[in-house]
């Protein structure tokens, strides 16, 4: 990279990159000053509330809002008629392509309600209690329809249809009859039959998983303010305010230029805040009432109406030779999409066997609609489900041929040059390094007690780049304001400022980040796909180099020497060599101070569509203790190992690994959506939707492996998503070692574990098969 020549900080010794710094927004967040979605108030503000369907599946005969409108204090009531009915059009949103026809129906039901909690009207009133009372005055007549909750039931020929016109895509010839199967996807390479023929041992297993929610602690919230002239401002908690702007403008038939969206601080998202729910409704209410409208979901609404990720049924078949060569892998995946098409099954098919260098592979996936809330992205969407099955089967293969599970993984590990089933050959990746770090870790050799077991599993995620902008505004004192467009969900401000300070060669305290609104920066894709530090980081580096080049030009003019004779070093412009002339180096502060005389303000900018995201592999080791009288599983010890490419801020990389691991522990042991026969969710709260609490888990040990991503200046790979992939299989494998029983359904909750243990004790025990 030639332009590196201008930047002396290309040396591998970094001043800021790779160090543990206090985040720039830290003080605001430990003192309560930081403003999250629900923290903003506006003069003359109204409170909005949504009327939600109590039925899992029904035709809407009519909605009568007149009584609600008549209630004193009610300023606006909206229904589907206030939101555009959009034709089918696919657009990227978060991890999946979404269809505007579906978004508009998910935001406000039109012909039918498709799940319990489906929005079908909303009111804005002068107080929350009046708004609630108004909801109770809205009359809706439903024509109840049979519902379907389970993915396999939904695929049956006689299953109730959610979308009467839905013909399965990806099947040739196209089926004549509609079904709940939205799409079939297939990836394959090599010759499966030949592959399995080479195998000495073949294992085929079925697995079930249930939907799990992202579980961010901050409910969805927004504040919309539409002026009489149609200009609108929206404040909301989101992973991508530019994406919100696009969706809202479309759903409300507004000019995109008239809508300015500001991202609040975001209280967790994990993929769940990549789509719109309240935002278009609040705008519609504000447009209708002419007053600002604030909307905040209750926790119950979050569970009933926002995206969990898919539950699924999968079938995994893998073959191995006695000496440990995996000869073939075949996977069949049925993912619930919720009420509208678009489960992450395709990504699951692409990831399932990605940690292995395989010649013969096939993955087939089905995207199936059911009467549940539409799924949204959740941390490495699709991958945890698919890789859970594959990693359990790999463990069983290792046991059957008497090989150490890490050795089997090492022997077949994906590496640079591995042909993936989804297309590309892998570049430099760090799976082998992670597996070796796992083998070398003291945890792997530590002794275990009775009813205890140890499990390992690998995880793979692609990571993405995408559109990012960055602007560096130099102040008169030489400090810099860094404007970026990716909401800071886990400390990205810190890592981005560190890269800026590194490039500029100034002190980190001199870089002040802000998340720009949609009017003050070019389009920036959302914080997701583990892209913020990678892609926005690239933009930040380019913006820094842009302003460095401008400073060099100014200094060259000042010294009256060619610009190439001016180099940038450690925050100073210097003559390239003595024969360039003897000039005192000029600091950024000095250059900034004379900016108005040398051509005006100094601003660096970059607008890019980042390519070349590096995949990230991880390997987890977990020890469990199983209470054989109650089925309770205790996590005794946990180690997460991952290739970060380069950890710009090691603390936040560790934090991603630890947080992902614990979300995975919840998925493995207790988290699930529990539905009654009435199609209603029975556990829409943190009391019975059991995410891990502090006393459930031990310290999560971490090992950061750094195999640089060649396409990034500092070698960064995304790190946020991979850590949630290995835990479920690692824990299942550990429980198998502790009990001799293989669990093929998540969550491995106490009643299930105890039932299996009891069954295995019974005379005709086959649970352990």
């Amino acid at each position: 990279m030639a332009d590196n020549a201008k930047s002396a900080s290309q040396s591998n010794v970094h001043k800021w990159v790779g160090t543990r710094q206090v985040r720039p927004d830290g003080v605001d967040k430990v003192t309560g000053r930081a403003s999250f979605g629900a923290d903003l108030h506006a003069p003359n503000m109204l409170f909005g509330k949504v009327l939600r369907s109590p039925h899992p599946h029904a035709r809407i005969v009519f909605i009568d809002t007149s009584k609600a409108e008549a209630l004193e204090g009610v300023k606006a009531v909206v229904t589907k008629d206030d939101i555009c009915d959009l034709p089918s059009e696919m657009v990227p949103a978060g991890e999946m392509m979404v269809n505007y026809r579906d978004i508009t129906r998910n935001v406000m039901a039109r012909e039918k309600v498709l799940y319990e909690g489906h929005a079908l009207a909303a009111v804005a009133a002068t107080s929350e209690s009046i708004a609630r009372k108004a909801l109770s005055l809205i009359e809706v007549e439903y024509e109840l329809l049979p519902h379907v909750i389970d993915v396999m039931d939904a695929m049956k020929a006689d299953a109730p249809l959610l979308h009467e016109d839905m013909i399965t895509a990806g099947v040739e010839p196209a089926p004549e009859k509609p079904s709940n199967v939205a799409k079939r996807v297939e990836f394959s390479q090599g010759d499966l039959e030949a592959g399995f023929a080479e195998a000495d041992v073949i294992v085929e297993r079925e697995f079930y998983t249930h939907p799990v929610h992202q579980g961010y602690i901050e409910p969805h919230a927004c504040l919309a303010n539409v002026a009489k002239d149609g200009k609108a401002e929206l404040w909301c908690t989101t992973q991508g305010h530019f994406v919100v702007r696009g969706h809202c403008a479309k759903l409300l038939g507004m000019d995109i230029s008239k809508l300015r969206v500001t991202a609040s601080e975001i209280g967790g998202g994990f993929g769940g805040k990549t789509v719109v729910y309240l935002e278009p409704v609040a705008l519609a209410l504000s447009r209708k009432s002419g007053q600002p409208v604030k909307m905040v979901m209750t926790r119950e609404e979050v569970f009933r109406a926002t995206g969990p990720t898919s539950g699924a049924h999968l079938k995994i078949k893998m073959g191995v030779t006695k000496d440990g060569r995996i000869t073939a892998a075949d996977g069949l995946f049925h993912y619930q999409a919720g009420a509208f098409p678009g489960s992450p099954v395709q990504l699951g098919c692409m990831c399932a066997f990605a940690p292995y260098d395989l010649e013969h592979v096939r993955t087939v996936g089905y995207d199936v609609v059911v009467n549940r809330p539409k799924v949204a992205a959740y941390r490495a969407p699709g991958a945890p489900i698919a890789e859970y099955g594959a990693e359990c089967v790999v463990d069983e293969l290792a046991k059957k041929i008497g090989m150490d599970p890490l050795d089997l993984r090492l022997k077949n590990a994906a590496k640079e040059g591995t042909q993936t089933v989804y297309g590309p050959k892998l570049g430099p990746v760090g799976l082998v390094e992670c597996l070796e770090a796992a083998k070398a870790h003291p945890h792997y050799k530590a002794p275990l007690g009775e009813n205890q077991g140890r499990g390992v599993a690998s995880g793979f995620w692609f990571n993405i780049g995408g559109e990012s902008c960055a602007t560096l505004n130099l102040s008169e004192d030489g400090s810099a304001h860094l404007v970026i467009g990716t909401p800071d969900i886990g400390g990205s401000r810190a890592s981005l400022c560190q890269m800026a300070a590194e490039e500029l060669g100034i002190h980190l305290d001199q870089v002040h980040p802000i998340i720009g609104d949609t009017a003050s920066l070019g389009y920036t894709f959302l914080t997701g796909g583990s892209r913020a530090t990678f892609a926005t980081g690239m933009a930040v580096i380019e913006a820094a180099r842009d302003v460095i080049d401008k400073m060099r030009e100014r200094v060259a003019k000042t010294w009256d020497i060619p610009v190439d004779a001016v180099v940038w070093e450690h925050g100073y412009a210097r003559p390239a060599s003595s024969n360039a002339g003897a000039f005192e180096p000029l600091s950024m502060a000095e250059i900034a101070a004379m900016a108005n005389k040398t051509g005006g303000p100094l601003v660096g900018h970059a607008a890019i569509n980042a390519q070349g995201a590096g995949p990230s592999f991880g390997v987890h080791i977990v020890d469990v203790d199983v209470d054989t009288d109650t089925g309770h599983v205790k996590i005794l010890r946990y180690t997460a190992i991952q290739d970060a490419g380069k950890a710009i801020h090691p603390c936040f990389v560790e934090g991603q690994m630890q947080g992902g691991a614990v979300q995975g522990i919840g998925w493995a042991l207790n988290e699930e959506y529990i539905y009654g026969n009435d199609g209603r969710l029975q556990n829409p709260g943190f009391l019975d939707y059991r995410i891990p609490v502090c006393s459930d888990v031990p310290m999560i040990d971490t090992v950061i492996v750094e195999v640089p991503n060649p396409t990034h200046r500092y070698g960064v790979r995304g790190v946020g998503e991979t850590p949630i992939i290995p835990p479920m299989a690692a824990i299942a494998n550990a429980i198998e070692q502790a009990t001799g029983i293989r669990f093929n359904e998540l969550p491995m909750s106490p009643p299930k574990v105890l039932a299996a243990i009891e069954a295995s004790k019974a005379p005709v025990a086959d649970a352990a098969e």
Partner: protein
Amino acid sequence: MARVVLNGNLKQFSDGKSEFDIEAKNVRQLFAELGALHPALAPHLEEGIAVAIDGEIFQDAWFAAIGPDSEVHVIPKIAGG
């Protein structure tokens, strides 16, 4: 001539053909050529598609350069949570 491989479901729109040798300087030209060869494929190349050129993935990158001996895989677009 670059070696071009269609992955996933795409070959359903190219009469089952999944491998091509195509003259194209960049992704946009490649899509135009593919679309011309198989009109049914054209709409599916407009959105939700990425390419891997000699192993490196490009998304929404019309002008990513394709070398004369490049191996190009046309794959579904990837993103994340």
